[in-house]
């Protein structure tokens, strides 16, 4: 299992969706930390606490974007992701983005 602490390993200030618009974006996070281990079938634990917060664009692109980029089912991605957060609603939100991305992909 790989553990990724967002605030320590990436940034305390996650913001926005696309890499072209900033270095602390959801796309940058996904590419740097999530895509390869998920492709390899490794379990990834994401520690969400410690940042100033998360916008919906960041979360959707970082996690929902896994479905679009890797063309993998939500079930497969969710089986490989673990979350650590004091805010359970944040984790629920991320899971929903992954499921929604899967639904959109299959439409």
């Amino acid at each position, binding site marked *: 299992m790989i553990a990724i602490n967002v605030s320590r390993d990436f940034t305390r200030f996650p*913001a926005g969706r696309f890499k072209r618009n*900033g270095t602390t974006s959801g796309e940058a996070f996904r590419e740097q930390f999530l895509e390869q281990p998920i492709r390899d079938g490794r379990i990834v634990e994401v520690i969400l606490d410690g940042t100033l*917060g*998360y916008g*919906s664009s960041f979360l959707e692109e970082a996690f929902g974007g896994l479905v679009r980029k890797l063309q993998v089912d939500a079930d497969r991605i969710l089986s490989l992701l673990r979350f650590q957060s004091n805010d359970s609603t944040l984790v629920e939100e991320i899971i929903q983005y992954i499921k929604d991305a899967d*639904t959109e992909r299959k439409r």
Partner: protein
Amino acid sequence: MRNFLDEVGIAVGQGKRVKLDFRKTQIMYPAATILLFAEVDRLISTSSNPKPISIVQPKSQRVREVLKQIGLYELTGDKSSVVPTRKDVVFWRTAKGKDQSGQKLAVIEVVAEAVKLERGTTLLLDSLWRGVSEAVANSVEHAHKAPRESDGFQGLPETTWWMFTQVKDDVFYVVVCDLGCGYRATIGQSIPERFIAQISELFAGQNVDAIAIEAAMEFGRSGTRESHRGRGSRDAISVVEKHQNGELAIFSNSGAVQYWYVGGIQVNQKRIGLGFSINGTILWWKLPLKAPLK
């Protein structure tokens, strides 16, 4: 304000030197001030004149301190020896940037910590971050997707967004501004046309910019899963929702929509036609630092 800014812009465009006379200015409101600041920044950045705009000193000490605190003297290249010390001035903070990299917004954390120390009140930093960072991300992503209708302006090389914070009379304000094309020009890129058409029909005859804001907000709040885009507007509302009490106003070109929250529940909403265009977008949050009296 808009007529005033247009006149300043015309004069600078004609190569004239403009003096902004603050002698009679008594109060500065964040939303109006950020628009002034952003437009002055734009005009100075795009003028071939090395010093197209200067400041005539305010008589009010408070206003002098505000102008120093937000960096307007620095922007125009004017000198001011004033050192801001007033409690209703020192929480005015400025940030601006081209991209959405979060570090530039870290000033919010600084202000939140200072508010906590000074007043013992905790701002919900994570929800504030969510709303403000999304507003900035929206500006970066969308503001200059089309030229500005009024003058074709397509953005500055170094700055897309501006942000202010202020604390006054136990109220925390934060505003984010861009000088872009506005909601109406870009909502079709992240919100299904069908949804926009439904909202437009619902509010037919009302201000088209306000309708565009409303469509963006309602799509974000609706939970509809038609698209993975367009959810950022929900984040703007969540700031006041989680704070329990407060207001959000979104201004885009000639329209505005305002939301009022008490006890975490929306108690009022208003759609407004401004009668003029601000030539950009402003998101404005007002968060009381004390609960309202029952």
